[in-house]
Structure formats: C-alpha cells, structure tokens
C-alpha cells in the first residue's frame, strides 16, 4: 500500500509500524513518529492504512 513518508509517496508492504521499521531497516529506538499529525509514543505499535501520512524524525547535529 501507499503511505506518505516524510512528504514523499512510498509503497510498502508493512501493515503496522513495527513491520515498517523492519522494512525500512530503521531502529525504532532512534526515531520518533507522527502519524497523521499525532505523535506515536515510543515503543507503541500502530496499524497503518493506505494514505496515512507519516513523519519519521531523528536527531542530527545542530546549534
């Protein structure tokens, strides 16, 4: 199904967040996720549906 991840359309096979982390080879401990503008608390899984808008963010160097 198609999700909008960080502003770009992306086809994925995962149907929940933890499967998506595995599919994208992402360590869930290093990122924070917003689904449709609501923050998903760390460690919580959630169901994903086609068209969901995800923001996946992490820390980078900054001043």
């Amino acid at each position, binding site marked *: 199904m198609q999700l909008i*991840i*960080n*502003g770009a359309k*992306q086809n994925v096979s995962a149907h929940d967040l933890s499967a998506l982390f595995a599919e*994208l*080879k*992402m*360590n869930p401990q*290093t*990122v*924070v996720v*917003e689904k449709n503008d609501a*923050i998903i*608390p*760390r460690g919580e899984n959630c169901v994903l549906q086609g068209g969901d808008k995800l*923001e*996946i*963010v*992490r*820390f*980078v*160097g*900054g*001043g």
Partner: protein
Amino acid sequence: MTNDKLKIGDREFNSRLLIGTGKFGSHKIMRAAVDAAEAEIVTVALRRVDLRNPQDQILEHLDAKKILILPNTAGARDHIEAVRMARLAAAAGLPKWVKLEVTPEPRFLLPDPIETLKAAEILVKEGFKVLPYINADPILAKRLEEVGCVTVMPLGSPIGSNRGIKTLDNIRIIIDLVKIPVVVDAGLGKPSDAALAMEIGAAAVLINTAIATAGNPVEMARAFKLAVTAGRLAYLSRLPSEKFAAEASSPQSGIIHS
C-alpha cells in the same frame, strides 16, 4: 570558582560553555570537541530521517548520563512548528528541555520575538524548561522571564556569522534586568568574543560554528573553554574601572630625574 555552578531550572552545571553539534566533519570529531570543551549541555536538531541512510544516529556519540542533550527547534518558522518540534523531541525520550528558536527569515535567521513568546508560553505550561534564542531585546527578555523561561539566549550577531558581539550594550542591559541566566548565543567567532561575554556577566555562552568549522575543532574547543573560564574569573574578580588618561603603575615619588 569551585562552587561557581551554573544553575538553569532545577539543574546545576560546572561548565559554562554550551556546544552546538552542527557542521562538524564527523560525529567522532564532534565528540572529541565536546570532550575537550568539557561541555555539559549540547544542542541537537530534529530532522526527517534520511530513508537512504536511516542508521545515522548522533545520540550514540553523546553520553546522556554526563551531558544534557538539548534539542533545538531550528528551522521552525512560527510558534506552531516550534511547539511541534519540542513535543517530538520530548517523545524521543529526552528530558523536557528545549532551545526555542523561531527564525522565519532565512538570510539572517533572526528570531521572531512574537512567535517565540507565543511558543514559550505554550511550552512552559506543558512543563518544558524553555531556553529561548532571542535578539538582544531587554524587554522581550523580561517578558520571557515572566512567562517562566529558565534562561534567555540573546544573539551576539547572526547565527554562524562569526562576527562577534554586535549587541553588547543591550546584552549588558539584559544581564542587569533579568534574574535568570543569560546565555550569549550565535555569532561568537573567537575565544575573545566568549571571554568578553563572560567578563560582562553572561552566565554562559553557546558556541557551534566557531568550533566546528575551525582548522582544528578539538583544540578550538579547548581554547573556548579556557576563554570562558578566564572571562568568568575576571567577572567574579570585579574588573577595575576604565580611565581616560594614564594612571602610573609605578610610584610617582623618588623618581630619579637628571
């Protein structure tokens, strides 16, 4: 000096040099510079994950037991974006502290005072310790203190410009007017700029570009550490007054005249 702690909110720090982690050549150099600076507060930014390189992770290179990792809201253009970033950073498991930056104008990255105040009010109510980046406006600093910010962070000159402290008189007024620690941030390009800020009574300084883009960032971090220590010691020792004319240091009696 041994008991001269920097108190911000409910925490105490030995170091008065805050380090920003942007622009370093590598995480390893950044870590070495933070160590050389003996910094206890370092800032980080929040950005979208690069899906092609999802493993990159700066927090692995920072010891959160020894260092307060202070997320910023850099890139926020209004209070809504800034509040969103602060909440996301807290959701990542960091302490609820935030360096609040709202910079809608991209060329000079000057902070928007109105949006900053709005965001500060919201975040303080949500329990955040808020450290706002501001222009050196004493009345704005007072307003931010009144809404519960734990510091104010007036700029010396535009972010990353290395132009030093162009706002000296207003920073002096802020230091006189507010009770919360004043952390001079942005534009400090040389250790002497940091020493000057500390000599006039700033509680701390934040340095990023001047260290990260130096020829030798690790040694420059050490130079800034020494400058901050020297400036603080000078401030605590009470600088003598300036005079227009000479005042001889050697005795004026018993001079051997021909």
